[in-house]
């Protein structure tokens, strides 16, 4: 069969696609084996190339190996604690890693979260007689928790959206609730829109006429250490109250479908 194919290859101009037909010669059937060892495996890979191509392949090898090593080194420096090297070359590491190779594997580390942080929100709305009132506090996190309970496939909307939006807010604001720049402002808007969406879901009638302002707070409760540890933590929740935020017309357009 090989012979037949080779003959065909040699004799005719290539009439049609024949990826495989002419392959055997390349990998060594046609090329006389140059090594003298007994039953040599057919030459493959870089060894099957003629010198100029071999140089090209070697070059490719060098480049690929170099890039891979640099990449892994950068990722390592990115995930490792701040150290001599990463402090010196922090910018280079960030340039390499962000935005596409960013990663965080401190999963429940160094310590798992030991507090339940419930985010709650309420809204101001205009009454029919022209007055201004506000709703009760809605525990948005409790809604999430209820959706997660007994669920084999919790949705990111319940498990991550609010939880991470709150993380994002706290990490981009100081304790006086001042944003640390553009990201801080984004997180504020984001949290506000989540609040508007969720309150609108709970109180569609009041939201229909437009909410005026929303306010968000967090209620942080320690998870009590296990009974056998003998430790006791203050069971009193800590409340962080954010200022009232004006709801914009854009915010009112937030949709979940």
């Amino acid at each position: 069969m090989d012979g037949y194919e080779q003959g065909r290859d040699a004799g005719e101009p290539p009439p049609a696609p024949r990826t495989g037909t002419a392959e055997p010669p390349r990998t060594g059937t046609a090329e006389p084996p140059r090594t003298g060892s007994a039953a040599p495996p057919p030459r493959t890979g870089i060894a099957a190339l003629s010198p100029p191509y071999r140089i090209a392949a070697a070059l490719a090898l060098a480049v690929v190996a170099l890039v891979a090593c640099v990449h892994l080194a950068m990722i390592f420096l990115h995930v490792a604690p701040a150290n001599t090297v990463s402090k010196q070359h922090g910018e280079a590491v960030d340039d390499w890693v962000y935005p596409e190779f960013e990663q965080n594997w401190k999963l429940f580390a160094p310590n798992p979260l030991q507090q339940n942080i419930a985010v709650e929100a309420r809204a101001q709305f205009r009454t029919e007689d022209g007055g201004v009132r506000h709703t009760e506090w809605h525990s948005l996190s409790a809604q999430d928790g209820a959706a997660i309970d007994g669920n084999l496939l919790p949705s990111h909307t319940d498990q991550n959206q609010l939880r991470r939006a709150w993380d994002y807010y706290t990490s981009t604001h100081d304790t006086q609730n001042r944003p640390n720049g553009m990201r801080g402002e984004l997180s504020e808007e984001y949290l506000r829109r989540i609040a508007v969406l969720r309150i609108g879901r709970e109180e569609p009638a009041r939201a229909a006429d437009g909410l005026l302002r929303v306010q968000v707070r967090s209620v942080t409760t320690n998870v009590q250490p296990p009974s056998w540890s003998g430790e006791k933590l203050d069971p009193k929740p800590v409340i962080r109250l954010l200022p009232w935020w004006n709801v914009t017309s854009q915010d009112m357009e937030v949709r979940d479908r």
Partner: protein
Amino acid sequence: MNRLDRPAGALSRGIGRITSAALGPYQTAVVRIGFSVTWLLFLLREFPHRHELYGPQGPWSWELANRLILDNQAFTALMWNDGRVWFECVYGLAVLSSVLLMLGWRTRTMSVLFMVGALSVLNRSVFVGDGGDNVIHLMAMYLVLTRCGQVWSLDARRAARAARARGGGFHELGEEAAEADPDRVGPVLWWILGLSLAVVTFLGQLGWGWALIFWTMWLAHGLWWLLGRQAPGSQLRALCDVVTNLLHNTALFVIMAEACLIYATAGWYKIQGSRWQDGTAVYYPLHLDYFSPWPALSQLLSTQGTAIMLITYGTVVVQVAFPFTLFNRRVKNVLLAAMMIEHAVIAVLLGLPFFSLAMIAADAVFLPTTFLRRIGNRAARARGAVFTRTRGVPEQRSEAGADTGGTGADTGGTGPVPEARTGAGAPEPYGTGAPELQPELQPEPNPNPEPNSGPEPNSEPEPMPQPEPNPAPSAPERPRP
């Protein structure tokens, strides 16, 4: 085996290995299938919530995302247009590409589209993701560089059929079939994608870096197709093959290193935590409202102080130790099983199914080849059984007499093609007495070492470009009488 060879010899043998074959075909295939399935299930799960999570009018609105992305320059096609239709298109593309990547249809192209889909969706709303999204994001990029469709793919099946057409049945209908039915889908796909890329580039939506990457890949696919057609035996094509193997093997190595980094990071940071030291760490997540879908179960578990401590310590030990155990195959396999089981438990207990699935998919890159083959064979047999049961009768009726015996062989042939070839045809050619170290780091002892006079030395690793001119023969896969 001359293990006492000088380092230079070992180096040149190593270079020979990584340039002559795309190693770990089963491992890369299982990673490909694992991640495409995970991503597909995730997209389907969030389908009802897709607007809230990624839509232009969700809480993280298009406008908010745009402000962030202008700053961080992340890639997402969802920023190219703020319309609803475009959003649905991209989401649909993400779903479709993950299905096709899972099946291994035009694998190399689909891996690119899969990456586009995954990055688009994930980068669109970074603040709804978790660790699982993060792994998928990374692996979607690494997979593009691998030949992940060598086995367990429609591409492999197509290649096998083409090979059989050229091989045994050649004299009868193989040749005509091959010539009359060249691959049309590949070139069409290539042109469509080229046009789309041109439009996107022209509209100025791509950063220069991404434009360079996409155009390079597009040209590389075209070049490979052209070489396969015009100069299949040429040195240039051999060079392309070498470079592609190189990229594959490097990407495979990076995937493994990435998995190790994940565990190392998770483990070493835990060691520093007081709760992991005092043996109560596992207790806490079970009491977080966001990670306790089964409160009763969590309560029950958290009365078992000793068990909690053992799990806590065990988790740290396994995570820290895992990268080092790669140097010993047996220990590695034990830890691998432990980690997969732990992730399966986490999936249910902490309500993190997609994260766990993604981690299991990443772990799977370390599974031993023999195990993967066994699974593959079993799946193929199961498939064959189902097919003969459901299709056996009508096929006997509708097709020629010679095919009655062929039904079984046919189904058997389509399913386990890759196994049949690599398994029976080429019994571990180089890997026989492989030195201790190699199989661990490169799990596959040389997959496709161009068997002696096999019909198609190169057609089984579905070569890189989709428009490769594999003739898709109409009938020739029928078993020869």
